Every structure is written in structure tokens, then in C-alpha cells.
């Protein structure tokens, strides 16, 4: 028993692999903050952008991500109101203001920080083809366009965790 505790106390997360499949601001920031937080703790981290998550690394789209106001009970507004024109833009503006107060970087700057911090950024090949995108549509910081199999092979060491967002 004592031995087990001894081993457990030395067990540490070594690598975090995030799969980002959504383009709403709250999901994108969740992935970015967790991935950056890992690097800051000396843990390796990588993000695999797939399906709508790809919007976060598209040059033309990344600064125009929004908060979801429909189907999001945490907004505490009736779903029908959330669907009115301008609601998403308003909620997004308010959230960005709050984030700026906490010194959270905008999406583009956050991606630069992640890349400079050694966080690998991967685009999903299947999703890139599905949305008819090319390499030039993606930001320069993207390390490569890879398959699901390639991404799994990145989980090549003990104490690696995968997280789907």
C-alpha cells in the first residue's frame, strides 16, 4: 500500500491532447486556456482542430467567432430571444469586453502565444477537405494537416490524456 502511494505521488500528466470540434468562443477559449495552462505547468500540449473547430485557425474567420445564444441555458435568456437578430453579436461583444478585463488575448494573439509556447496546432485532414479549404486558408502557425491516425500516434507516451471539446 505504501509503495502504491509512493508511485502515485510521482505520477504526473505529461501530455495533453485536445480535440476542438466547435467554433463558439466559449469552447475555443476553453481549449486554448487549458492547452496554454498545460505548457505553463511544463506539460506538453497539442490541439487537433476538426469540423467547426477549424474556424478558429482560418485566417478569415478566427476574429469573428461568436458566443452561442440559442440552445445555451447558461445565457439565462429565453431561447426565442436568443434567436433575435443581433443577439449573438451583443452577447459576443459583452463577453469579449469581460475577457479583455482579465487580460485574455484575442483569438489570433492567443494562437501566436500557443505556438510560441510549443503547443502543436493540427488541422484535421478530413474536415479540411469537407469544407474545401487549402493550406493557405489556415494561419501560418498551424503545424500541419493530419489524419485522425496521425493524431492518435501523437499519444505516444505514458501519462498522455485526450480531451474532446
Amino acid at each position: 500500500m505504501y509503495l502504491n502511494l509512493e508511485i502515485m505521488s510521482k505520477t504526473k500528466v505529461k501530455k495533453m491532447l485536445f480535440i476542438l470540434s466547435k467554433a463558439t468562443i466559449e469552447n475555443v477559449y476553453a481549449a486554448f486556456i487549458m492547452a496554454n495552462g498545460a505548457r505553463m505547468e511544463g506539460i506538453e500540449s497539442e490541439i487537433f482542430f476538426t469540423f467547426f473547430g477549424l474556424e478558429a485557425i482560418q485566417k478569415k474567420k478566427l476574429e469573428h467567432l461568436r458566443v452561442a445564444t440559442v440552445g445555451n441555458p447558461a445565457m439565462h435568456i429565453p431561447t426565442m430571444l436568443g434567436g433575435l437578430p443581433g443577439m449573438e453579436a451583443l452577447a459576443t461583444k459583452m463577453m469579449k469586453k469581460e475577457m479583455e478585463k482579465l487580460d485574455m488575448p484575442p483569438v489570433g494573439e492567443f494562437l501566436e502565444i500557443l505556438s510560441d509556447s510549443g503547443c502543436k496546432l493540427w488541422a484535421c485532414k478530413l474536415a479540411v477537405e469537407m469544407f474545401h479549404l487549402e493550406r493557405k486558408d489556415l494561419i501560418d502557425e498551424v503545424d500541419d494537416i493530419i489524419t485522425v491516425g496521425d493524431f492518435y500516434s501523437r499519444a505516444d507516451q505514458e501519462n498522455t490524456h485526450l480531451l474532446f471539446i
Partner: protein
Amino acid sequence: MIKTIKNIELNVNDEGYLQDFSQWTKEIGIELAKEHDIELTDKHWEVINYIQEQVAANKPLSIRGIKKSGVIDIKQFYALFPGGPLKVSTKIAGVPKPKSCI
């Protein structure tokens, strides 16, 4: 907790951060760096000075702040202080561990 470096008794918390900055000296910084297998160069000292100035001015430390500091870029920062740069550099600088998540 009490930790002894070069025959000087220091008050540290359970993570090894100095609790009283007045106990910090350059020699202590050099010894703390050795515990992380870091030999301090001029560039390290520039960063340590920056960190101590920020803390003295009550400004929060963050990786974004490092990027804007003009002292060092993020890539270099990670290279100089491996294993969690802000955590390690603040410990060497004798200031509290930053509480921010970013």
C-alpha cells in the same frame, strides 16, 4: 517551512517559494536556479529583474505580459526556464507564484 541555502535560513512555502522577498539575494537566486538545473546568464537576469519590478509595482504576471514586455519573447522564455517558465522564474526571483490561469 525553513530551508537552508548557504547557511542562511529562509522561510519558504510548501512549494519552495520564498515567503519574504527581503531574504532574497542574487546568491540565493543562483542557488535556487541550480535546483532547476539552470545556470543563470545575463538574459536570465534581465527576466528576473523584470519579474521583480512587476511584482514590486503590483502588476500581475502572465505569459501575455511576457510577450509584451520587450525583455524576452515567449519561445526564449520557455527555452531559458524549462518545465513551466513563469513558475520556475518566479521561484528563482524570490516572488510568489503567479495565481493567474493565463
